[in-house]
């Protein structure tokens, strides 16, 4: 993943936290915000080493898509 993108994302997240902190009036809102930020951090960490995690490599999805593809092509 591009380093410029990661820096830009960090700046955006810090900016959002600073500006919108007053709008997060209850605990559920704060928890929601930090859950999504945590998800972004995990996604960035696992994507630094690996380029892509294709949904088509999930065997159920691949079989479903290719099954319908073959059915339509017949």
């Amino acid at each position, binding site marked *: 993943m591009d380093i410029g993108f990661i820096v830009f994302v960090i700046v955006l997240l810090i900016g959002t936290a600073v500006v919108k902190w007053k709008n997060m009036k*209850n605990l559920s809102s704060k928890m*929601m915000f930090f859950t999504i930020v945590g998800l*972004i951090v995990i996604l960035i960490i696992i994507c630094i080493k690996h380029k892509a995690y*294709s949904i088509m490599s999930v065997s159920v*999805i691949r079989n479903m898509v290719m099954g*319908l593809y073959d059915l339509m092509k017949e």
Partner: protein
Amino acid sequence: MQDRMKVTALQMSLLVASLLIASNMITMPTALTMAAQQDAWYAYLFSIPYGIGMAYIMWRLVRSSPEKNMYEIMQQSLGKWFGGLMNGVLIAYLSMDLITQLRIYSDFFSSSILLRTPQIYILLMTMLLLAYYAGGSMEHLFRTNVVFITLFIGFYTLTPIFLLNEIDLNKLQPSLSNGVIQPLKGGFLAIGSFTDLIVFGAFLHHVRKPRDIYIAMKTGVIYSAFMLTIWLFCVVSVVSPILSTRLIYIGWILVQQIHVTDFLDRIDLFLISLYVPILLIKFAAVYIAILTGIASYTKQKKFDFINLPVGIVVTILASITFNNTDEVSQFYAFGITPISICVQFIFLAGLFIGLGIKKRKSQPADLKVNGSGIGVWLMLAGGAAAIIAGATVGNQHGYYGLTSACLFVCFLLVCVYFSMREFAKAIGKRT
């Protein structure tokens, strides 16, 4: 921000057109021509009953729980935990839909227009635009849409006239000669491309009167199917069914075929500048529907603080979820349909079971069926009968298939006329 502004039936109807037309113009014809070959242009007739069925469901939901959106109705009817789980399923589906469509859009831009820009930045800039729209009120989106979709429909309806010197009717023949299975296969994929309509469930609290949403969605669905039929007719008759199965961005190739005069050689650039805003409005509508769903888990019901973080998650997922353009276009054409049908069936069944368990007082009927409403159904039945009759006898003589095709066009045109008349009557009565 989740607001309670009301929108008119016309604005809703035009948003339906934005949701359905633009995103199905670029890559979807490839899958449809692969499934139905020269009969692909009949496909969108089959998606109209699905769209009207969805409009009917939305109307029933608004009637049963006015001033509430689908997520709120779900939590109200099935409780906080099970309702929340069902909402989560729908949010996951909508996210997958948005990620897939964003990836197709960014792949298209990476390979056709912005050749040297890294894809992640195309996605990020698009997402920032969507976040900007989501930060405003829903009414802004509806109003912006009215301006762009009017121009878009105006120009794209004229596409057959722009392409008049390129259309070869021989490419449409032999019409309906391969039996009824081919148009049905195309129809199944076309139904899948109309499943985005469930997004309207997130905007139910903007509806003024319950019947408005039914009439608006019905008119929008019929007109969208008509526009996409015109588009597929042009794809098949200009590019040919065999070649269009081998091209990914067939819609882009089609507009490049417009050569009105030597001076107007690049009309495609003008048309694409109308196409992109409509596509972005569709993405914004889906994105706002996702944010509304996520915000339903918090107590304050506003999503401005999660707007950008969710946008970043969607950007990263759109970047990493598919390896290449082939994968994403195949997934969009063949994978979204079964997933969306399953998700929508489970979600709506759960919703109506929950609503059915709760006892409610009887409500007065607010939707009177008039002559035009019946006319729409008769014309749809006529169109389906023309396809079935043509497919039954089309292999005996080319003339039979041609006659059926002409009848199909007539039925579809009259169907559009009846739906417009029904819409005008419904709006006229209210004012």
